[in-house]
């Protein structure tokens, strides 16, 4: 049963890996099935080279994640610790509604905004809508995490003479590390995979993010679908995510085993 689930989730990825390592002819049953890195050479030397869009996506993802976390944490803290009865409840409801809002409806407005504020073709500017979209969920996750911390821990820290900044650094952040790590992963993932906003905001070839750059791969040839190139780009695009999750996992797991937050 476990093997079946593993196969179910890993199967497509492995198939993609195999596809990326075969010459195009072999994919349709013609020619020899010799392993090759030709597809990778193709996408990495293309115009724009894939590594450039990987870098762009990485920068946008990093910026979005940092911006989201640094806004969401104080927000969640204030909402949880200074909850103002009905108001706090209302804000929570609005957050939930916002995180469920169909983002497709925002594109026209965002496009108009980008035009009038001259935000087009800027990677930094792209972080703004991404952050806005990621914030509601991030706040909800962090708020739940803060709610799970016993308030006496902070009281004790206050009595120890720790100011808000010190409490944040030496008590709250370490204890919230697991929640922060999972929020960071979710935010980075959403930004990494985002397509429509990037498509409409970015037109300069050297500033394309990964999804938009991948879409351009198809446009390079009218008559054949470049399966091999797609596969290679997918594999390359998944590697950073894999790395990220592996790194963050250590935080998440250390948070879980630490346990006994009850003191």
């Amino acid at each position, binding site marked *: 049963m476990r093997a079946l689930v593993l196969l179910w989730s890993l199967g497509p990825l492995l198939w993609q890996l195999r596809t990326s390592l075969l010459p195009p002819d072999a994919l349709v049953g013609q020619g020899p099935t010799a392993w090759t890195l030709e597809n990778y050479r193709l996408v990495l030397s293309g115009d724009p080279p894939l590594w450039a869009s990987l870098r762009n996506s990485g920068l946008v993802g990093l910026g979005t994640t940092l911006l989201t976390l640094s806004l969401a944490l104080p927000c969640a803290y204030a909402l949880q610790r200074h909850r103002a009865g009905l108001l706090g409840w209302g804000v929570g409801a609005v957050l939930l509604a916002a995180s469920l809002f169909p983002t497709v409806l925002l594109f026209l407005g965002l496009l108009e905004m980008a035009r009038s504020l001259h935000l087009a073709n800027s990677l930094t500017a792209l972080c703004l809508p991404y952050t806005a979209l990621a914030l509601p969920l991030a706040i909800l996750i962090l708020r739940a995490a803060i709610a799970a911390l016993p308030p006496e821990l902070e009281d004790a820290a206050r009595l120890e003479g720790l100011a808000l900044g010190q409490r944040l650094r030496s008590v709250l952040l370490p204890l919230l590390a697991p929640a922060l790590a999972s929020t960071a992963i979710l935010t980075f993932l959403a930004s990494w995979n985002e397509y429509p906003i990037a498509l409409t905001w970015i037109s300069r070839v050297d500033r394309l993010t990964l999804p938009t750059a991948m879409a351009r791969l198809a446009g390079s040839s009218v008559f054949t679908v470049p399966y091999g190139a797609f596969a290679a780009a997918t594999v390359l695009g998944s590697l950073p995510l894999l790395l990220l999750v592996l790194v963050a996992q250590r935080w998440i797991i250390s948070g879980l085993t630490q*346990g006994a937050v009850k003191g």
Partner: protein
Amino acid sequence: MSGLQLQQLSRRCGDRLVLEHLDLAVAPGECLALLGPSGCGKTTTLRLVAGLDPCSGGRILLNGEDITARPAGEREVAMVFQSYALFPHLDVGENLALGLRSRGIPRAERDRRIASVLELLQLTALVRRRPAQLSGGQRQRVALARALLRQPRIVLLDEPMSNLDARLREELRPELRRLLCGGEPPVLYVTHDQQEAMGMADRIAVLQAGRLEQVGGVRELYTDPASRFVADFLGRPAINWLPGRDGTALGLRPEHLRPRPEGGLQARPERREWWGHQQLLWLETPRGTLRMLLPEGAEAGAEGLRVGWRAADELWFDAAGQRLSAEGPWRQGLESGAV
């Protein structure tokens, strides 16, 4: 004035009055227990003194100095929380060092103080353990160590032993007294356990619904309660209540009831609990069920007996729960029980 004074201290949560005009004084080195049922305002009082919550009214004086508006971190208050509130991501040594570091105490001095307090509480071997790797008793000692390290001006204890088993609690009581009480700082000890309050405190303040019911010595509160609530709250097994005239009530402690050859009330034992050094009898009488404590050796027949008490042991209260003098018209009708 030295020591801690609370003057007209009030705390309002929304439109609910959690604490109402509390006046209380704790002398230097004195241990005062705040005793009362859940929600009576005892923990609130502690948090106000610690500066963790703002007062809605009144003043807090420490050695004559008004500290009402001073932030928690500057009050030099040591507090032991019910949950101990140890930082789970830090080991014992780091837990203790955190506060000293934030106060900018140099490393050498810090290490020296931590080492001496670890020694005092026999925690030296556990210094690299995290709270999750400690037993309840050890965690409590770490919390105590953190409080002692502070060289505090006030010591606050919020049910520090409620997470320990009864045996350990009994053992720790004298140790806690030795470590915390009798020094310079006044000690406020919050508990809902009257035995703990009686064992720990020099004086006890009984709170109910945000109001001070009575404050006094341990013995005084037990033998001379000011209100029906205090009489009812203190003492195990609980005091017996007999209805008097005009809504008055007579309180009789179970240990004050005695078997009598004649006079008193006719009683029939319903149930008995044997406690080793004494036994508790549940007596069915014409005036209701009474609990009576019999010393070891005394026997009550199964079929029936007569119980009486000394007039001096009667505790009378009016319909509003206020204490009445032992002489008055309310005694009529129950005199037959007196011996």
